[in-house]
């Protein structure tokens, strides 16, 4: 059997296409050097100054180059030349946000979402981020909740950002933040590291000592190499003034290091850890 593209005529067309593509490639692939690409767009614009697509494209390049004012100018120019594409409206909001003009950003994203019927997850996220910067935490939370519930593939970073907004809205609301972490663990996998780390921080910051210690134990039991976790747990035990338990944890850290495979024993990270253990032991 043949694949669709195995057809001979297509094969010839394809070969021609490849040749043409190769010839073109020299220019197309001179990537990375943004300045060069911006200059190239500027040249194209000088040739067809009424082409709103070119202004949009140069705006994107300026945005990548962290030249937000110029990016915005190009976006607005593109719009004035008749660009009614939704993507442009989104970029206008985004570049306002990046430039720190949150009120303008909110205005643009609101009109974007109105046109769209507010189902665009990416735009909702930007709206939440803008609202957060404006201190409208309740509204921001509401928008972000939509993101969490509707994003196809959530990242741990999204859950952590949501937690930040919860705590910005009410810094005593550790329960809601912990709930968000737990729901994140359900969605992304029960051992997702950055969520488990945030859980530890939340427990420590809210003074839930025994639960925080359980969380250290979770790391100890979940991980193959424990020396760093024993030390971290010892630091916390010392911090909450439980020196004997801290010493036990440090002894277990030292015991673990002694039993490490030879190849790890002289690694800089382990040598540093040994010093840290020694100095903490001396303080206890």
């Amino acid at each position, binding site marked *: *059997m*043949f*694949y*669709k*593209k*195995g057809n*001979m005529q297509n*094969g010839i067309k394809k*070969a021609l296409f*490849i040749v043409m593509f*190769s010839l073109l*490639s020299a220019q*197309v*692939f*001179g*990537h*990375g*050097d943004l300045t060069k690409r911006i200059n190239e767009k500027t040249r194209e614009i000088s040739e067809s100054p009424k082409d709103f697509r070119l202004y949009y494209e140069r705006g994107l390049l300026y945005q990548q180059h962290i030249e937000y004012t110029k990016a915005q100018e190009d976006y607005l120019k593109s719009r004035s030349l008749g660009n009614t594409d939704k993507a442009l409206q989104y970029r206008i909001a985004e570049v306002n946000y990046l430039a720190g003009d949150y009120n303008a950003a909110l205005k643009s994203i609101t009109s974007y979402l109105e046109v769209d019927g507010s189902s665009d*997850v*990416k735009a909702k996220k930007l709206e939440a981020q803008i609202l957060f910067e404006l201190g409208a935490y309740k509204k921001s939370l509401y928008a972000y909740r939509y993101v969490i519930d509707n*994003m196809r*593939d959530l*990242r*741990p*970073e*999204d859950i952590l950002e949501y937690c930040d907004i919860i705590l910005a809205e009410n810094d005593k609301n550790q329960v809601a933040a912990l709930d968000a972490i737990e729901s994140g663990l359900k969605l*992304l*996998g029960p*051992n*997702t*590291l*950055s969520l488990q780390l945030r859980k530890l921080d939340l427990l420590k910051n809210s003074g839930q000592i025994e639960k925080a210690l359980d969380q250290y*134990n979770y790391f*100890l*039991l979940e*991980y*193959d*190499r*424990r020396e760093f976790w024993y030390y971290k*747990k010892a630091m916390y035990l010392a911090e909450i003034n439980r020196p004997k*338990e801290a*010493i*036990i*944890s440090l*002894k*277990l850290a030292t*015991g*673990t290091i*002694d*039993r490490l*495979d*030879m*190849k*790890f*024993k*002289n*690694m*800089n*990270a382990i040598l*540093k850890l040994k010093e840290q253990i020694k100095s903490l032991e001396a303080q206890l």
Partner: protein
Amino acid sequence: MIKKSTLILLMLFTVNSFSQTATADSPIATSIKNTPSVVVERGPYLQTGTPTSVIVKWRTDTATESVVNYGKELGSLTKNETSKVLTTEHEVALSGLTPNTKYYFNIGNATEVLSESVSGDMYVITAPTPGTDQFVRAWIIGDPGTANAFQRQVRDAYYNYVDTTATNTGKTDMMLFLGDNAYSTGTDEEYQSAFFDIYYEMFKKSVAWSCLGNHDAYSADSATQSGPYYDIFTFPKEAEAGGTPSGTEAYFSFDYANIHVISLDSHHTSRAIGDPMYNWALSDIQNTTQDWIVVLFHHPAYSKGSHDSDIEDRLIEMRENFMPMLEANGVDLVLNGHSHSYERSYFINGHQGLANTFSLEEITNGGNTVGATGKGDGKEDGDGVYQKDSAQPEGAVYITTGSAGHISGGDLNHQAMYISLNKLGSCVMEIEDDGNGGQNMVIKFIRETGEIEDYFTINKTGVTITDDANEPKAEVGAESKKVLYVAGHDLLTITMDRNERLKKVKIYNNIGKLVKKSRKKTIDVSKMPKGMYAIEITTKNGTYIESVTIE
């Protein structure tokens, strides 16, 4: 339309010419059957290979069921995995496989086989169990996605290398893509012509891994993990292939034999210290027990090619934020792309500065290079191989190898580089026994001409023969050593000076919980679970705490 007879003739021809070195421009399948009603447009290709599982993906022109038939013998694919859901984007996970074992497979739907290889070139070899010391070959491909003749020449040079090399001929355990796999914007169409249509022969017998490049990122969105890059690849978010769960396909790790591979996203994800990717990478590298650590990310830590690591923010951040941490924890090899050239460093450690501050003459803080041979070419037949051992576990080679599809020059004068070439090519990494209980990591840069223009070796001692006497002798708790325990025995004995009198003994388990109290000098530990314990001994003179492993 071509006449059916011609078609069959063509098919016969392609069956004969089908081998790993075949370099036809279009995917050609190998069965001689009636033309199926459903056409495989993409794949099959292999993802997230583990010792016991692999994911097979392919695309069909019309929605149909997904079937993978597989087995250890080519003529008898007796097992199958089926999904009845009608789809064009097929993704089938095979599980319960035996490690280090070759499984032939074909793909199809409920009624017929849609793609197979009668010559046995469609297979998966499952990963060895983590920690296994054996020969491993990885093909390293940076910035390939031009879909042009250059990309094909580089590919063919590797195919020719692997098919004619003297040892482990034809074996490619994995493909490591360094990003920018499909220009110009990483769209699905571009991925078809620059990725699937180019490497289809290797994809059906070698697992492909990647990190995100800036050109992939035009179409892919890490924030939503959507777009072609994230659709095409299925990477382990929950440490399915070893390592630490990252919860995202943007950065992840996996184990293969005794190698730990970490793939980072240097484009979209925050590269700041203390942010999620950094925290994850730190925990991940500090949890591995593997002999070799390889890290890949797109934006080069060191480069003076078409990108400059002295002035571009992503490159600077990867170097300054991630490299000190990765080096301190034993990274051996760093693979980057983005600059379309080949730049390969000396055996370096702890530099992380600008290009012109790197010096072979540097001596403070151990210098910029490692060991007696670190300043040299790393060649066995040259200045000598780079050396790592338990007394000297630091040192890494950085390779910026982004010329698998095109070259684009630059100053190419980074001082950390032993060699900088504005030439097309890809790299091969081979890990092999050194015959002395250690292993060699041999890297070769294979030009599009087939010429090997650079190579070097990192030798690591004590890999295949590890120090069994790892249970510490007298050095534990050197100040006292009051606990005497011999592995495998039931009794633990407290020893002390004649003038000391034991008051009590407390035993804490590996999470510091008190599990046993005693007043005796000899304690039966036969019923205690194996593992590490802390023993607290109180005598008239004071309290001592020591650790012991009961086994």
